[in-house]
């Protein structure tokens, strides 16, 4: 029978529970909306770097991200040694980032508008670092994503990835590869880091694939879960 898509599979209770790092507590509101989950996932990725985890624990103030293309918005409330991410722009927001959230992951995205940076320069600078966390090579990130993805039945157990910039490639799992992905280094990094969703990248012509529709669907579901932080 069907396999459960797990892009919203964690219970709200689990999502709202604290996720402890060495120095960072990252929480989300009850019954969170996607942008809240995405921001929390980004902050968790940042918290893998000790310096940034420490920054999350020390930062105080409220930073909101507001989409210019739809009603999506969320506020990161830093304080008490961690951060709580909630929907909407809080009234007591210190720094407001306004951006086209559909193009934020582009190679050359338009600059977001940032309000409040004059009064809260350190807060704005810290959050800009947190929202652009360090990443490994596309091969390292592909490996990390794949290890997560194959935990779900239905996902191809091997994958060949080709970087179209330089022809470098990686086969994950046991060959022959059941699925192939081709794309630029930037596009591969984006999808494997959880900045974009595989199926959408294919539709947008940023990635190309060779494989079955069923595999595409399952991998896209895992890609979405990856983006939403359902690790």
């Amino acid at each position, binding site marked *: *029978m*069907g*396999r*459960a*898509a797990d*892009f*919203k*599979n964690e*219970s*709200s209770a689990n999502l709202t529970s604290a996720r402890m790092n060495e120095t960072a507590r990252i929480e989300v509101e009850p*019954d969170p*909306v*996607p*942008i809240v989950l995405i921001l929390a996932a980004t902050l968790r990725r940042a918290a893998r770097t000790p310096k940034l985890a420490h920054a999350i624990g020390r930062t105080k103030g409220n930073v909101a991200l507001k989409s210019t293309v*739809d*009603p*999506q918005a969320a506020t990161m409330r830093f304080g008490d040694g961690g951060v709580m991410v909630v*929907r*909407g722009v809080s009234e007591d927001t210190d720094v407001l980032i306004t951006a086209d959230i559909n193009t934020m992951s582009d190679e050359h995205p338009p600059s977001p508008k940032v309000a409040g940076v004059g009064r809260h320069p350190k807060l704005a600078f810290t959050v800009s670092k947190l929202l652009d966390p360090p990443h490994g090579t596309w091969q390292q990130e592909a490996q990390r994503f794949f290890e997560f993805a194959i935990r779900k039945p*239905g996902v191809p157990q091997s994958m060949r990835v080709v970087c179209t910039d330089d022809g470098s490639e990686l086969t994950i799992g046991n060959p022959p590869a059941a699925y192939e992905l081709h794309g630029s280094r930037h596009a591969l990094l984006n999808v494997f880091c959880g900045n974009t969703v595989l*199926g959408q990248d294919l539709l947008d012509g940023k990635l190309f694939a060779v494989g*079955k*529709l*069923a*595999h*595409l*669907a*399952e991998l*896209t*579901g895992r890609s*979405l879960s990856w983006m939403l932080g359902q690790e």
Partner: protein
Amino acid sequence: MTPDTATQWLDSHEIAWVKTEGISIDGLVIGKHLSTRKFVSALPLGNAITEFVIGYDIGGTPFLVWWDEWRREALGDFHQRPDLSTLVVAPDRPHTANVICDIVDLDGNPIPACARSKLREVTDRLATHGLTAKASFEIEVILYEESYKQARASQWRDLTPMAHPAPLGYLHFNSRQQLRFVDEVLRRLDGLGVPIEAWHDEAAPGQFELNIDPSDPVTACDRVVRIKQVLREVALDQGCSVTFMAKPSPEFGNGLHVHHSLARDGNPVFYAPDGEGMSELTRHWIGGLVATMPAAMSIFCPNVNSFRRVVGFAAAPTVASWGEDDKSAAVRVLSRSPKAARIENRVAGGDANPYLVLAAVLAGGIAGIEQSIEPPAAQNVAGWGLPAGFPHLPNTISKAADAMASDVVLHSVLGAGFCEYWVNTRRWEWLMFHTTGGDPLATSVTQWELDRLFEIV
């Protein structure tokens, strides 16, 4: 009716075209217009239809974030197997017949996403307990003066209800204004063999309600589907519009209350005359209905918009409760009359798929008797405005999906495969709302909801 007799029937009624009516997971009617030659040649499996029709959401976006093993790997075909007992002359088009279909695979097996087959599966399970069910629905609809074209142009806002603007209900002055419309609806339903028991003006301006005679569960749902189609078609023909949205405006909503009764050896199961108390079977049945209510909310309220209706003092129940003739309880038990002993579920919205609603209701009851679930105490207070500590029902599409995902009781009858599929589709709906223009902070119906649901649910 057999394929042979169907051919004779088509000939004798001078039918040239057959409209096949399948039901999507969202309750939309999907199918083809077939020449009688094609229709007959495709029997008994029925015409092919792309499997893609069960692979996209109510907004037309493919469900491409999971895959079900029963799906065709390369987007091949399923079939619409006609239920020839539903073949009927179309009252609105010459030389045309309508037939309701199940969605089956190439071997004729119902696919898990076929809601009609799921309901039949549940009634078959009920029969193993020596029980038969009868059901009927209350269909609420709001009628507007504007045509669909005009309503689209105004983005479904500021429409003119075909009635006095005060929310009174049962007002014959309102019914009179709707007579031209309703008379044509009743004429066509009579032609389709759908027996209407009563109709009346309802509380929202422009809203009226149709009640159908009780029947076996699948027939009851077939009737709902045909009634909703006829209401839409007459609105199209007369230049007005209707909606079944659970909450098309900040003030008012449409429900889909469902009544069911059980019989064993012809005797009404729920009948409990004063002083004698209810049977153990009835107790367990109610226990199952209440226990599965949080998970079943995902089916009763399938859309983001559905939950705008489930608020206090708006006629829809908000806690998992039951009570004897208590309209603020989610499960209203009417046990005092042998002829009318029944249970009413008052939670489902007008946008819900009737087959799935009834399947979930009966599945809850069946689970109750199979697992000997005792009900909580009857609700003896008003079911609205209750504080924390009462068993409040999930109030968002995501919470309801989580409730169904973690449920085991409803799964035991509806099947894990179906429940997983359903949860996936609802989580997808959640994602679509939040990422394609829905406003999570809106306290009233959003443009996204109106665009997606007003015309077609």
